[in-house]
């Protein structure tokens, strides 16, 4: 295993006395494409928010490429790109304006930001819609625009929260290839998802989070232990409900 690009130690966060993240430790090697999987409400988004400096943890630390996110946020933010679960974009900017704005906020010269924005829009198949307002974009287009914004300053570490939620299969394939290409150049990607097939296909490292705790972590093969990742995941977190007795009326034959 190489040097860790992401190192999380004892990260903890509570909301109204309820532990959203109950002290997690994580180590992702540089050049990994890592998945953070868990059921709804497991703490994935809260963990990623704390790792990216958007949510102050109650305890613990997170180090990205040697920079402590909370002790030295400027240095840490310079080396990360973030794609939140709900694309938080400026609705009244056009697609190309929002990418250029992201580049300039990260200190790129305007001309370079424009050049990269045009290239990213092309790769993400958004060129035809580049001059439309983000407010008029579909969910998938917004995801792709958010990914472009996160990539424009060429961050060595990329965090994505549910990156393929609401994205059509063609666009999903584009995003998958883009992430693999990024990792191929030595960058590190950590993304959260509850789509096991996707994680199984693309990730070389998987961590399973449930009720705010990491219940399994390692290479994808280690975590699934000879089963499908879906089955391994269900075995780890347990099925949520099996009682379907009360639904005897449901189904065509019951009419």
């Amino acid at each position, binding site marked *: 295993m190489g040097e860790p690009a992401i190192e999380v130690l004892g990260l903890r966060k509570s909301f109204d006395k309820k532990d959203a993240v109950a002290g997690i430790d994580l180590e992702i090697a540089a050049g990994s494409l890592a998945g953070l999987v868990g059921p709804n409400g497991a703490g994935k988004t809260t963990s990623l928010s704390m790792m*990216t*400096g*958007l*949510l*102050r943890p109650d305890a613990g630390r997170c180090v990205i490429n040697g920079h402590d996110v909370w002790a030295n*946020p*400027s240095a840490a*933010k310079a080396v*990360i*790109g*973030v794609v*939140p679960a*709900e694309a*938080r*974009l*400026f*609705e*009244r*900017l*056009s697609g*190309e*304006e929002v990418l*250029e*704005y*992201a580049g*300039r*906020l*990260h*200190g790129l*010269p*305007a*001309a370079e930001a*424009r050049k990269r924005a045009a290239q990213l829009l092309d790769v993400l198949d958004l060129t035809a819609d580049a*001059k*439309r*307002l983000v*407010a*008029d974009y579909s969910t998938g287009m917004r995801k792709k625009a958010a990914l472009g*914004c996160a990539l424009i300053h060429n961050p060595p570490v990329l965090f994505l929260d549910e990156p393929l939620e609401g994205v059509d299969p063609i666009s999903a394939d584009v995003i998958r290839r883009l992430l693999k290409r990024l990792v191929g150049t030595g960058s590190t990607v950590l993304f959260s998802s509850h789509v096991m097939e996707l994680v199984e296909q693309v990730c070389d490292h998987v961590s399973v989070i449930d009720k705010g705790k990491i219940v399994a972590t390692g290479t994808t093969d280690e975590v699934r232990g000879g089963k499908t990742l879906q089955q391994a995941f269900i075995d780890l977190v347990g099925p949520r409900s099996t009682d379907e007795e009360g639904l005897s009326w449901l189904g065509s034959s019951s009419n």
Partner: protein
Amino acid sequence: MARLLVELKLRLVRNALRSSTAAQVSFLVSTTCAALAAIGTFWLLAQLRPLSSSVDLTTVIFSIFAIGWLIAPIFAFGLDGTLDPATMALYPLRTRQLVVGLLAASAVGAWPAANMLGLLGVTIGLARGLGVLFAFIAVALQVLFCIVLSRFVITSMARLLRSRRGKDLAIFLVVPVFAIFEFLIQVIPRAVASGGLSPASFAGVDSWMRWLPPGLAAHSIQDASTGHLGDAVARLGLLVAVIIVLGVLWVRSLGRALVSTDTTTGSSRVHNAALPLARYGVRGAVAARFLRYQGRDPASLAYWAIVVVIMFVCSASTIVGPHQHPAVVVASAVFGAAFAGSLHANPVGQTGPAFVFEATALSGRRELRAYFSGQDVVFGAIAMPLLVGVCLVLGELVRDPREGFAAAAVGLAGLGAALAMSNIFSVVLPYPMQKRAGNPLPQQAQGYGGHAFGAMIGTLVCVAVAVIPVIVLGNLTSSVSAAIRIPVLFGLAAGYGFGLAWLGVRAAAIVGEGKLPELCQVAMRTSL
């Protein structure tokens, strides 16, 4: 179906009441206002009895209620599920069932009841003899006309109102409504007090209004009271015909609206190729984004228009009244600057979740200074000519241009103080915002009323205190030649204002440096 939809409406109200204390307070305030409106309208209409122009004034009041029914649902659309036909589209309902149900649901509530009871004041103010019976029928038909008109317009505009452009339109409507409201509560009472407006002013207005539906209702009462029963019946018949035509149009538009629920927003293309201010780093980037928003965000445009309305209203008494107090233009400048600042004092909440986008790049004190000063550059570039221009116009209107120039100088200093306070409050008292029923402009989220009030009052007080030296200087130099006084006053006020704004940027950056995660949480709790 009518019963089900009425029950749905009552259940929605009941659930809203259970949701929070703020909702209970809001319901109580709304119901109290409706009761007061009913009593006030009844009393007002009853007072018209001895007046020769009572039918003209009744027509005007009936028309005002009809306009209210027309406008209010546009503001509430998207927030009141019972108004949008799309919410019913998935259920196997016939259009006729739906029409009856929606009509019944519309007629239930404090405001429809207040409308009905208030307008019955005509039984005292206008009706005599058999006219009383006609008054009950005419008022019932007037309320029915209002409901059907409101439903027809809303249903016809459903596709538009559901879209971004429709929501933008609703925001723009806030400005004339705000201006009319201010006109009614500030200017009209003063005009009445000074004798500039009296019941006689309305004489003859119904020469054309009598043929509109509210006029038909009012005049049928008058006709029945004066023994012209044939005319009264004919007018009511005409009103019924109008309601039937509107009803048919409503049914047709409802049929169309039910099968056009998936219509997407018509998208617009922008013509600007790249963001401006490329040479100025992060400050230039933030300024460029803020500049784009000032032109494209209807809320930003509405805020600037509201500032202009406030400035004119402050000086209205001197403009329209017989008593001249030119110094009131200075008050306009102070209020204009203060409200410009307080309306922009919560950029994190106003930006909403997109602030997180900026927060992923901003972290140090230097970047935050660039962030605040970038916004201030654009804010100042818009506010300075606006405030100076309005002050000069007001100076002309109060027939004292010198006072207009002095007020403009005060406005420049006030603007600097307003910028400083808006930046400081944006990190000291940030609060999430949300859209609420009855107002298309985003308001502070429930539980944050104190933050919004504190920021507004704090900005007002600080601006008022900060401009005192400029006002004193203006008074001390009032006898100096204008050619010397005005440039010196302008230069000193602008320099002073710039200094205050600069201090505000530095203070906000120092406080904001350690609070970025908390600001992000405020932004993420915002729903625009």
